[in-house]
């Protein structure tokens, strides 16, 4: 009578124990891989080597401030998104100069049509945005809608979406750094809620941090 219940319970117990163990083993590599993706993404979109990065979260937005060795602000990475993609949400990482001009962007996650809408992530397409900002009369709409953004052929919806995502990123820049007078000096930034020190340190010295993590993982195995 109770045998089915007992058997199922035992199988579930064994399964969950096993998953617990696998989770323990993979949790560090997964976190590391995600961290690395971020660092790599930042390195890809700035025209200079990214070493010293501080992360700040303000009003739901995440900002990465890239500084030179001397602490001078060289660029700002902003996570932004749009819900208006052809297949839903598109997340991008926008790289701006301290003056709010676009260096480049990287599409972090998207479900746009392969071979078609996905071209919004191509280097050739991204070029048109280089050096553009909010304040120089560039209209953040596709040409079909009376703006200045070139659309990907046969993918107007995706092109509208990317324009929306970039525009949102530029708005986020304005929210934090002001429209006209950016303040590259440290400490002059308004509205800092949280600066995550842990992220900052692992960003600034990726190698030593990785080694530390690897060592920690080894200890876990031994202990």
């Amino acid at each position: 009578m109770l045998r089915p219940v007992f058997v199922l319970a035992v199988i579930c117990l064994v399964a969950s124990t096993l998953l617990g163990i696998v989770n323990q083993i993979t949790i560090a590599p997964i976190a590391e891989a995600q961290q690395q993706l971020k660092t790599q993404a930042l390195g890809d979109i700035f025209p200079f080597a990214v070493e010293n990065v501080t992360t700040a979260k303000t009003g739901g937005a995440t900002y990465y401030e890239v500084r030179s060795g001397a602490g001078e602000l060289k660029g700002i990475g902003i996570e932004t998104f749009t819900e208006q993609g052809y297949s839903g949400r598109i997340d991008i990482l926008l790289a701006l100069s301290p003056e709010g001009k676009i260096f480049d962007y990287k599409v972090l996650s998207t479900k746009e049509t392969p071979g078609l809408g996905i071209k919004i992530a191509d280097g050739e397409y991204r070029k048109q945005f280089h050096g553009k900002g909010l304040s120089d009369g560039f209209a953040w709409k596709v040409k079909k809608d009376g703006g200045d953004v070139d659309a990907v052929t046969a993918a107007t919806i995706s092109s509208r979406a990317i324009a929306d995502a970039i525009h949102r990123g530029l708005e986020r820049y304005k929210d934090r750094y002001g429209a006209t007078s950016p303040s590259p000096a440290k400490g002059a930034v308004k509205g800092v809620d949280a600066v995550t020190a842990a992220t900052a340190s692992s960003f600034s010295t990726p190698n030593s941090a990785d080694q530390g993590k690897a060592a920690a993982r080894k200890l876990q195995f031994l202990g």
Partner: protein
Amino acid sequence: MHPYQEFTKGIVKENPVLRLLLGFCPTLAVTTTAVNGLGMGAATTFVLLGSNIVISLLARYIPDKVRIPCYIVVIATFVTIVDLLIQAFSQELNKNLGIFIPLIVVNCIILGRAEAFANRNRLIPAILDGLGMGLGFTLALMVLASIRELLGNGTIFSIPILTGTLPPIIVFILPPGAFLTLGVMIAAVVYFEKKKGA
């Protein structure tokens, strides 16, 4: 049946995709590039092998009434392990296969083999069946994905082949291309099997 045949039957004669017509969801969805087809095939084969082994060992202890929930727990465990490993060690694959890895749980090939084969066979045949079916699934996916990638993007495994000679026919990497290509593949396999049998 000869043990050798337990392995080979999954490749063409009882190919899970092309003959048994199982597991179409991942087959149609992930086969935009050959790499994705290979990744999905490998992940599914791992799960299939694991669940076949465990279920053939446990079958006689599992009461009939709760066998389906038991099988699903076993399968889901293997799928979660694969998912975590891919996330940890291959970001590229994780990005491309994403949501389809957890969905291996509901791939009817796996539950189908558990119900139709593993629970009434001993360990060795169950292993051979799992490997054969997994290989058949992987091959079907890779052929389908290679055709779609070649015609839709001019490449196979990202190696340019048709680039420059034939403009890419984008429809092949869109969902309709998956249905068209799969239909032709199934027709071809059925035709040759019939011919062989006649």
